[in-house]
């Protein structure tokens, strides 16, 4: 498994040529939720690979079960980067994705999530789903770290199988928390704004 992970990191580096920029935040092994914009199947892999090795072992990307359980290769890849697979179609009452995430995080792991839900092929980010809010509410101790992934939609856009190996950027911003008395909508739009700000700073 160690070998597959190394190969994955190397492949992610070759295909996406990413550079990582920590902006107003530092790598740390405290428990975090990295939340990012989502435009490509490579997003989870690249963001995970962009973390320093000691954090990679403690960080699990949350990914769609229907995609990552299809076929031997995808399953193997998903288990190599320790993905937490969520069933998007069958959401049960006591098995909600948020509960599952909190249970799987324990007091050890950090997660990578994409609050837009599914990959976005428009210019602007879609509205955030509420999972991030409930995570923040149930675990107020978590650092919620915004990440902007640039150019991934050109490397492997929605509906394509073969990647074009251009260069990309990962910008990791300052953590946010749920404020006292903040409503769900306020919080979600603030979280979304924190990613947009990282994008605008870059340009």
């Amino acid at each position, binding site marked *: 498994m160690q070998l597959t992970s190394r190969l994955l990191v190397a492949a992610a580096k070759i295909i996406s*040529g990413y*550079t990582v*920029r920590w902006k107003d935040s530092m790598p740390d092994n405290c428990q975090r939720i990295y939340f990012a914009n989502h435009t490509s199947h490579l997003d989870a892999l690249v963001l995970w690979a962009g973390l320093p090795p000691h954090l990679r072992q403690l960080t699990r990307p949350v990914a769609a079960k229907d995609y990552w359980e299809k076929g031997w290769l995808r399953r193997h890849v998903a288990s190599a980067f320790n993905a937490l697979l969520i069933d998007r179609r069958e959401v049960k009452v006591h098995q909600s994705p948020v509960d599952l995430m909190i249970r799987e995080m324990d007091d050890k792991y950090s997660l990578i999530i994409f609050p837009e839900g599914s990959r976005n092929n428009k210019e602007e980010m879609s509205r955030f789903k509420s999972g991030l809010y409930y995570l923040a509410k149930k675990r107020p101790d978590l650092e919620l770290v915004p990440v902007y992934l640039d150019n991934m939609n*050109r490397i492997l856009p929605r509906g*394509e199988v*073969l990647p*074009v190996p251009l*260069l990309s*950027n990962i910008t990791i911003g300052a953590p946010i928390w749920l404020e006292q008395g903040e409503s769900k909508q306020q919080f979600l739009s603030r979280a979304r704004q924190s990613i947009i700000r990282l994008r605008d700073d870059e340009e």
Partner: protein
Amino acid sequence: MLIDTLHLLLTGYIQESSTYSLPFEKRTAWLIAAVMILLIIGSLIGKLLERSSEERLNSAVVRSFNQRIRSWWLMCAILIAGLVIGQAGTVVLFGMIAFWALREFITMTPTRRGDHRALFWVLIIFTPMQFVLVGLNDDGKIFKFLLPIIAALFVPMRIALANDEKRYLERSAKILIGILICVYALSFAPALLYLEIFDSAGKPWSTGDALSANKGLLFFFVLITQLNDVMQFGWGKLIGRNLIADRINTSRTVEGVIAAAASSALLGALFSWVTPFTFWQSAIIAVVISLTGFAGGITMSAIKRDRGVKDFGTLLQGHAGILDRIDSLCFAAPVFYLITEFFFTG
């Protein structure tokens, strides 16, 4: 006088030790040694400047000087590694450089979703294929036709198939300029290794196994383009008054270009012993390299200005910006190849 004595000494030395087996010729080894000494001196100067830069010198200039020296060490290492591995090794290394340069170029120019498959063809199929064709070295030199004809027709067609008419011409042009500069033009540099060269007296010049003398010529070419870059910058700072195109580039001046061409001529003549050219031919060819190198620099500046980036290195933090270093090389390579092929292959 000095040159002649040196030349006599060197040729005498080379003839004497002709049985000695290096992966490249003795005179190439001499050139490499000279470059290494220059680089060591450059690194030392860089270190000294770094120490004393706080009070007297512009630290940005010192930093870019040191950056340049570092990337030259890398370039030199790559060239030497290529020369040791052989012709094919050099071609592969240049292929990788072209791939990376094109990647930077395309990353910087916005494309649309519909260009994805065309870009895949360009980066994954045409770019490697170009260098494979250079390495195959058939007599028809088919590598000269792949990109300007086949790819130049294929790319617009592939974009058309994607069924998106927005800014169609612009998108096709961007991709074609990218492969023309980063891949096609650059591939003429390693192609030099395959020419069977005769000197101006009509005697075969490319000697030894696999035309190993040509490796020295390639090294000479890269050396002159790189030194010319620096001299253009340096002379421009020292005596430059009139900017050539102030909206495109704020450091290229008429005086800088002329002075750099003159200094390149001197350098070309100084190093003529590693080439098939005579003293004067070498000087003239160095001037051509200098001017085409300038053409590459100013063209790349215009592209960068259009995209609103200062250099390709700042486009993505931490990347060296290969395109910034090889722009002059890309423009000079086809012209240098053409001159060598036309006048010196018998």
